[in-house]
């Protein structure tokens, strides 16, 4: 059984009739994702890929069982759409919007926590369990990247994920579940909050995190290892080791500020907790080899 999303997860698509929404609905369905309904205000009665469209989330959940909602909604309407899903009791939400205002992101995360729900994103490609199901827009057809297997992956970046995951697959591994938490300063869900699910997942042998400068998410992962919440092997690749201080490197969240967020600090925290940190994407596979073998032969953490 994979985490967050699996074959049996019943997915609602908010913003299903839009260009991105309808295009990726087709792909998610083709890959095997169970999409039960869609929502676009004012478009009730239409169908997208034979999926019925409703005006509101409440109408959709009153008609169909919904486990999760996938949002293809522009950033300025994302807060509204997330709160609408939470209001209808949806507990798993993925939003791919790039450009959600910071204050909206804080409100989204705060309300999700109050509701006991998980909002993944924004500014992400979403969540995928290769060969099973996906909420988001991953090029799952590129087999040298999205190969099913037993490595869990969490990432703050899209293109870099393709790069690093290709290296994991090249070494002979595959992916159990890949969660893109996104590149924003306040992601709805943080790395450490997903670790317990990877810990419990019997289909995941080890986890790779793809992080970068900025924030404290990697340090929180180190803490989870340190306090024994997470005990499987963990390998990290972090972008921005040589980035100058005070410059925002692409992602809104990728900046050293408030004295926090340097890659050196993250490496120090992760390594002292017992994780392995790859200097280059090409080394991630080798490090996985090293710690998975060690785990197997002398039951020692990597």
């Amino acid at each position, binding site marked *: 059984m994979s985490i967050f999303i699996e074959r049996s997860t019943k997915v609602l698509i908010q913003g299903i009739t839009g260009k*991105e929404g309808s295009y990726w609905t087709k792909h998610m369905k083709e890959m095997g994702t169970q999409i039960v309904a869609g929502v676009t205000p004012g478009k009730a009665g239409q169908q997208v890929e034979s999926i019925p469209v409703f005006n509101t989330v409440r109408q959709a959940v009153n008609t169909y069982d919904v486990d999760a909602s996938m949002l293809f909604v522009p*950033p*300025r309407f994302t807060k509204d759409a997330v709160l609408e899903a939470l209001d209808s009791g949806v507990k798993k939400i993925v939003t791919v919007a*790039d*450009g*959600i*205002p*910071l*204050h909206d*992101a*804080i*409100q989204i*995360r*705060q*309300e999700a*926590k109050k509701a006991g729900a998980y909002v993944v994103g924004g500014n992400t*490609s979403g969540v995928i369990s290769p060969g099973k199901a996906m909420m988001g*827009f*991953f*090029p799952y*057809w*590129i087999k040298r990247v999205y190969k099913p297997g037993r490595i869990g992956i969490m*990432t*703050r*970046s*899209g*293109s*870099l*994920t*393709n*790069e690093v995951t*290709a290296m994991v697959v090249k070494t002979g591994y595959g992916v159990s579940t890949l969660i893109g938490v996104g*590149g924003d*300063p*306040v*992601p709805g869900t*943080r790395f450490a909050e997903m670790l317990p699910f990877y810990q419990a997942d019997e289909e995941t042998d080890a986890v790779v995190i*793809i992080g*970068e*400068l900025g*924030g*404290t998410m990697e340090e*929180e992962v180190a803490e989870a290892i340190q306090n024994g919440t997470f005990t499987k092997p963990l390998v990290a690749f972090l*972008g*921005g*080791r*040589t*980035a100058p201080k005070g*410059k925002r*490197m*692409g*992602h*809104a969240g*990728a900046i050293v500020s*408030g*004295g926090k967020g340097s890659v050196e600090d993250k490496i120090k925290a992760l390594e002292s907790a017992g994780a392995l940190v790859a*200097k*280059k*994407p*090409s080394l991630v596979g080798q490090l996985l080899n090293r710690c998975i073998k060690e785990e197997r032969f002398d039951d020692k953490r990597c």
Partner: protein
Amino acid sequence: MKLFEYQAKEVFKEAGIPIPEGHLINELSQLDDAVRQVGLPCVLKSQVLQGGRGKAGLIQLVETLDEAKDKAEEIFNSAYHVKQILVERAVNIEKELYLSVTVDPVDSKALIIACEEGGIDIEALAVTSPEKIIKEPIDINLGIQGFNSRNIAYNLGLDTPYAKQVIPIVQKLYTVFRKYDAELVEINPLFITQEGHVVAGDGKLIIDDNASYRQTTYEKTSAYYDNEVEYEAALEGIPYIQFDGDISLMCAGAGLTTTVYDLIHYAGGTVANYLEFGGPNYRKAEKAMSLCLKNESKVILIVTFGTIARADVMAEGVVNAIAKLKPDRPIVACIRGTNEEKAVELLQEAGLECLFDTEEAVQRAVEIAQGGMVS
């Protein structure tokens, strides 16, 4: 978007936060009037966006008009490209405090931070003496309550008359934080004057760029950028950072571009510019390349691994850009992702070798930049 100090203080004034009397001047000829209006002694404060203005000599306390003229001339002629000076009445300082509102991404709350030592580097103090820093989280879905401001003001160890002045300032600063979609709003220092008033000595306001559609008071003009190319890129919505090394990056995806930046440094190379033409910009190869060509770089390195930003579309854009711009320097391309087979074909037809390994592409670019063989 980081505002200039004088703009942050305009916002403070509008919100009812006390500021010293001040006048903004654009040239030396306006100095006399400004000094007459605010009185002597006064402070000349260069309006630049960088920190550490005091150490750089960009803030000067002056006692006489002649001194003011000398110092203002020095500032305008300095290497810091100062275009405006805020002339402010000098304050008789009794005590300096620190006050700011920012975001706590873990707790997903606003965070008011205060300290009874102002004018300091709060980041450094957070490391050396974290116990001196007072924090008050605010659930922004509930908004600031009276007790939040009282918690701040009475924990600063102030006498009651001062605490009673600080309380509304905390409230108002939080209001500014919310109203302007701020990443950070900061008063450092917040002065207590010898006359017993509490006044904002400095002002910093950083507005979230993602909220620019609903934050229209301040327009982001070229004055907010370090150089013209960065401004031109910003107008196109293309993420761009100037670095002045040898290799122009023309990559897709923030994480991948940042990683390529690292790999170049590991390989002993230097970066001329960071540029992303992925995401919504993946059809802008020509614009991206023309920005790179404005640099003195020795080679352009293209690395992508896109999903929606299709490899074939990006390769076609690159081929067309080369035909049109006729770049005067070599290009190393490593374009992968959706429809990558087609991308390879297109690049080959145009006589470009398409590499498939990021590290190999980086190595190739560094060799070219260092005068190695151009293949």
